[in-house]
């Protein structure tokens, strides 16, 4: 660092090797270095107050390389302003840290010769830069509104340039600055605040433990040109649109001259459920609700809250019919087809396309809110997330954001508005299905248990001896003695089911009843049951059965005597019947009951999950693979 004397006030003005221009911190003179001399080229006014957390001598890191902030240029265009912070890396190279709308972009200057020759810069066009396909996001005329610190060029206020911003895959960012005949090219990428590891930040009043300023001397206050009421800005330097809290007029504060965008919308005096100014911590970051708008697509209306943090920028809360989404703008453009979009390895399916029009606003916004502008929207879902694109055909600008479904109760708790939020109605497009198991774990558990159950059954059936231990014929004679017959057999092994089969093949339009008593010969323990056989038929019908089997459970091993006594239709003079005894028979009944019990819960969950998904997709014009479904097909 070389230090010179300010030609105006003799104060010390330092110059790094990479800079040729500085603003004297004592007298705000613009000092230009030419060879070994410095010369005065005028004075510059103080920059208007803004909420940027960055200041001269802020230190940060980009990738593995540290950097120091040496200077700033504030650039202005018709719809807002942004900061370009000049940074010097520890390896001696220089770059820029752009700060706009809560986004940060770090870039290094590249040789302009790398730009494709004869390129016409128009928003929406694709340009191949450094082997990467980039899209021109916007082309704007900008001028220097002010500057401070050291810079590598003379950033005199009013200096005009055309700025072309390009975006590409993996958060890639590039900027081309055309000033007169000079063309400069910068390439880098979007960064999250936290990854820049910034230190020596400017204290922001009212944030991060710093005391707020008194209302009268707030960070920036303006006066409403309609009613003269004071309008204080929560995010000066970034806010472009603000509503007057007194008369509701929508004001444009983009270039420090307050203009009227829209007269107050009196008919729609909507009170936000989350009052503006409320602060709450969402996913570890404190945000303040600074803007609220109602948007509509035909008869459907929803509310959007703009949340702001001076370090992390802007996020949204979107509320439709009691359903909430926490929405973050994406730094990159996802890979998208007509029906699918992939972001961070997650596939999203097209759910809705529509248009959105602003109907009501209150608070402040970082862009110029247009009431009659229609945004084309597309929503892709992968519950609990959704990806939304908004495009403004006139601006040739497409923005992508990712929403995350939030329970109404959680929002109420976080923002301290319990009992003030309405209950959600129906199923929202990215509402997680409460009946679906996480990662299909219920399905896997069911499959595993089913496999075990089937294995046990197969093993047991294969192991059953199914041994025929008795097979005896009897004759029933009406009015005869029909003395009790006995069959003796042995049950071997452990306790087991014993099947007794009764067959009366000659039953014709009559019935027979066989009473059994099974007696354990050693213990005298007995069991009894009655088997009823009947068989009736006509020319084209029949009912009843001539053969039936009953299984006695848990028959202990040992010797048994089975007593058999028949009774029959008194009209039947005689009938033959047969009794068979089988030990250790295979049993299916327990398996069927266990199977039914096992599947009951997963099937119930599955049915509820399906019904939930049907409710979800009933609101979509597309099927679950993102293909358009015409109304006729739906019927």
């Amino acid at each position: 660092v070389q230090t010179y004397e300010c030609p105006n006030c003799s104060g010390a003005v330092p110059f790094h090797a990479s800079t040729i221009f500085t603003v004297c911190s004592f007298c705000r003179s613009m000092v230009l270095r030419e060879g070994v001399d410095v010369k005065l080229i005028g004075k510059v006014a103080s920059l208007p107050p803004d909420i940027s957390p960055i200041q001269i001598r802020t230190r940060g890191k980009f990738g593995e390389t540290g950097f120091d902030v040496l200077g700033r240029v504030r650039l202005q265009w018709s719809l807002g302003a942004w900061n370009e912070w000049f940074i010097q890396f520890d390896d001696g190279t220089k770059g820029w840290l752009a700060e706009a709308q809560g986004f940060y972009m770090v870039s290094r200057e590249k040789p302009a010769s790398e730009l494709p020759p004869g390129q016409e810069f128009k928003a929406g066009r694709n340009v191949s830069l450094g082997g990467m396909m980039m899209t021109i996001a916007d082309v704007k005329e900008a001028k220097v509104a002010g500057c401070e610190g050291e810079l590598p060029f003379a950033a005199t206020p009013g200096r005009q340039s055309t700025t072309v911003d390009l975006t590409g895959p993996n958060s890639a960012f590039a900027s081309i600055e055309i000033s007169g005949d000079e063309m400069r090219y910068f390439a880098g990428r979007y960064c999250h605040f936290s990854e820049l590891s910034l230190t020596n930040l400017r204290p922001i009043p009212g944030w991060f433990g710093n005391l707020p300023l008194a209302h009268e001397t707030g960070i920036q206050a303006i006066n409403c040109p309609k009613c003269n009421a004071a309008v204080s800005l929560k995010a000066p330097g970034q806010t472009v649109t603000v509503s007057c809290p007194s008369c509701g007029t929508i004001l444009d504060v983009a270039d420090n001259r307050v203009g009227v965008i829209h007269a107050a919308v009196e008919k729609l005096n909507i009170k936000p459920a989350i009052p503006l100014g409320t602060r709450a911590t969402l996913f570890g970051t404190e945000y303040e609700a600074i803007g609220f708008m109602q948007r509509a697509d035909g008869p459907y209306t929803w509310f959007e809250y703009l949340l702001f943090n001076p370090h992390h920028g802007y996020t949204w809360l979107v509320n439709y019919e009691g359903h909430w989404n926490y929405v973050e703008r994406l730094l990159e453009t996802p890979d998208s087809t007509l029906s699918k979009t992939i972001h961070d390895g997650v596939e999203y399916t097209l759910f809705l396309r529509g248009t959105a029009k602003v109907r009501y606003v209150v608070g402040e916004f970082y862009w110029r809110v247009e009431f009659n502008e229609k945004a084309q929207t597309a929503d892709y879902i992968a519950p609990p997330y959704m990806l939304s694109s908004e495009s403004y055909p006139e601006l040739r600008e497409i923005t992508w954001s990712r929403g995350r479904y939030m329970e109404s109760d959680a929002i109420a708790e976080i923002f301290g508005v319990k009992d003030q939020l309405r209950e959600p109605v129906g199923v929202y497009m990215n509402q997680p299905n409460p009946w679906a198991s996480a990662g299909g774990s219920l399905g896997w558990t069911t499959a595993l248990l089913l496999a075990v159950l089937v294995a046990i059954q197969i093993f047991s059936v294969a192991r059953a001896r199914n041994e025929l231990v008795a097979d005896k014929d009897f004759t029933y004679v009406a009015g005869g003695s029909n003395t009790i017959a006995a069959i003796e057999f042995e049950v071997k092994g452990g306790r087991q089911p014993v099947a007794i089969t009764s067959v009366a093949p000659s039953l014709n339009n009559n019935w027979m009843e066989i009473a059994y008593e099974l007696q354990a010969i050693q213990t005298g323990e007995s069991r009894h049951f009655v088997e009823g056989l009947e068989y009736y038929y006509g020319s084209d019908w029949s009912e009843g059965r001539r053969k039936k089997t009953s299984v006695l459970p848990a028959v202990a091993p040992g010797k048994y005597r089975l007593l058999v006594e028949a009774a029959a239709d008194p009209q039947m003079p005689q009938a033959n019947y047969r009794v068979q005894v089988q030990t250790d028979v295979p049993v299916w009944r327990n398996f069927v009951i266990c199977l039914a019990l096992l599947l009951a819960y997963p099937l119930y969950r599955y049915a509820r999950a399906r019904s939930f998904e049907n409710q979800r997709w009933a609101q979509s014009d597309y099927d679950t693979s993102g293909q358009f479904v015409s109304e006729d097909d739906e019927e």
Partner: protein
Amino acid sequence: MNIKFLIVGAALCLYLALSHSRGWLLFSTLGSRHGASPGPRGAGLFHK
């Protein structure tokens, strides 16, 4: 929830294995035990 389901399912598998080894029949009261048969064989025979 899945843990509870896993426990219930495992219990069902255990029950099935036990029922096979013990000869149980779920929901069967057929030939429920009578205790020792009194008197001469056959005296306890049930008639409809």
